[in-house]
């Protein structure tokens, strides 16, 4: 057998793999791709805010308070302290995205770890972990987030902390149920019989099969997290003035709805666009992964 022959055999045997199939399918989904573009644009806007924004987000002039949309020099008007709305909406992406996405990422890591451990080890440890998780499930998520940040006090860190605590239980529960299902499959049994350690089995055989569903579930939580994070700031429990953040801007502009209603509504529109984009992308991801090509 020549080397060329061997190479040909190797090429045939290499299958495109699960994730590349998912990527290929989602790339063909126009709605998901559009949502992805919006999200990327939002992230770029947040990262390059100082270069894109036309003005200083903190400096205002009382003389030019609450100008309407379309004012010369202030395309989206000015806020209640005469600061440029366009600039503050651009800068707002930084804190709003950070406050919305970070809790889900941290909760994804911690929740998966708890859930996979509980699901793989099973028995008493499973019961202990999942019963504790059940207690947090007994609170509606909005109530838990608000109760925690109300008790901890306002601030960016406390807001992030309480949102993370809110999202750990649902992720852990999904991770536990997926892992419990995978653990019963024969090849895991075979790996155990061949003497693989628990850690190796989880790393090699379990993780690859459970991380997909958990990941999709977590992406679906991002939109909830964005709305809740801005909601905390809207209540005065998250970011503090004068920082630009969409929820907080919505709060401070609330009294202006009789003067410049559409300017006051702008920050909420930004939250809405971001959150619906994450939901559409998550839906696209879900159907791309369920499909057996």
């Amino acid at each position, binding site marked *: 057998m020549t080397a060329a022959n061997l190479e040909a055999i190797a090429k045939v045997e290499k299958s495109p793999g699960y994730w590349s199939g998912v990527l290929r399918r989602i790339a063909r989904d126009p709605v998901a791709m559009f949502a992805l573009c919006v999200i990327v644009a939002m992230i770029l806007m947040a990262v390059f805010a100082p270069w894109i924004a036309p003005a200083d987000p903190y400096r205002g002039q009382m003389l030019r308070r609450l100008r309407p949309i379309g004012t010369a020099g202030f395309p989206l008007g000015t806020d209640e302290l005469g600061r440029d709305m366009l600039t503050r909406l651009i800068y707002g992406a930084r804190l709003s995205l950070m406050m919305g996405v970070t809790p889900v990422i941290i909760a994804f890591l911690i929740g998966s770890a708890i859930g996979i451990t509980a699901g793989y080890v099973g028995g008493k440890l499973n019961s202990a972990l999942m*019963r*504790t998780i*059940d*207690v*947090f*499930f*007994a*609170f*509606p*998520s*909005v*109530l838990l987030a*608000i*109760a925690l940040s*109300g*008790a901890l006090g306002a601030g960016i860190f406390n807001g992030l902390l309480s949102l993370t605590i809110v999202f750990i239980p649902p992720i852990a529960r999904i991770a536990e149920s997926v892992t419990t299902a995978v653990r019963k499959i024969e090849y895991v049994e075979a790996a155990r019989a061949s003497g693989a350690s628990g850690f190796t089995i989880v790393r090699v055989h379990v993780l690859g099969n459970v991380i997909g569903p958990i990941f999709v579930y977590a992406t679906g939580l991002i*939109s909830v997290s964005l*709305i809740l994070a*801005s*909601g905390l700031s*809207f*209540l*005065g*429990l998250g970011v503090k003035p004068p920082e630009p953040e969409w*929820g907080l801007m*919505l709060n401070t502009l*609330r009294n202006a*709805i*009789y003067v410049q*209603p*559409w300017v*006051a*509504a702008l*920050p*909420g*529109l930004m*939250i*809405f666009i971001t*959150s*619906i984009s*994450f*939901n*559409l992308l998550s*839906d696209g991801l879900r159907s791309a992964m369920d499909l057996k090509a």
Partner: protein
Amino acid sequence: MLTYIAKRLLHTLPVAFGVSIVCFLLVHDRPLPVQYGLWVLTTLQGDLGVSIATGRPVASELWRALGNTLMLAVLATFIGFVLGCLFGFVAGYFRGSWLDKLASFVSIIGVSVPHYWLGMVLVIIFSVQLNWLPATGAGPGGSADWAWDWVHVRHLILPAVTMSVIPMGIVARTVRALVADILSQEFIVGQRAKGLLDLGVFRHVVKNAAPTALAVMGLQLGYLLGGSILIETVFSWPGTGFLLGQAIFQRDLPLLQGTILVLAMFFVALNLIVDVVQTMLDPRVQRS
């Protein structure tokens, strides 16, 4: 059936215990086990302490607010359930058509919109611009003199519609998946083959989808009761959420603790009821 209910009740007890501990840990000052014991004893007697800000018993403040929130949440859940079932059913029945796309789009808006912002937008349109409905409050006399007349009910419309958007989206998405799943099952295909009309098929789909849809509705009512703070803040609606907001900003800890405890226990009880009712309607749930 009875054993299932008993089991489910027993399962609720540790959860309720855990909830009380979390609420308790939010506010405490003496050695923990001692104070927890005392606190549980007084709480079980219906004494939630005295509000620091107003000097009135927390229980009585809470009782009045709870009625207002319940009214709002039940109405919102009802609107959301009816619209959600309609959109979900149309989307699932005509899967893949433009009707499905439209209904699915409406339901995804429902779950993505920041409802506090939607509330503001509705106020801008219907109160500021059109001047049709009041922007805030619960009518003349506040929450004390509620009556089911137009003067009061018009205050309920905007907050209830705003609140209904969340259950609408979630119910629609659930019902769509349910209907599509049921329609693809063999017994439906069999009925169609036997010549059953669309109306007959419809009856079977409704019967099979109802238990899950109702369970989702029950849970949504619980979420709305507990999560009403944002909407009640936007509309200054004198309910538990508004009370919670006040408690947080005046650092009124007894009021904060009492409100959270009662809302969480309400949610636990509602979960229990939903589970039991769902099992009664659909015995398959018990077996899984």
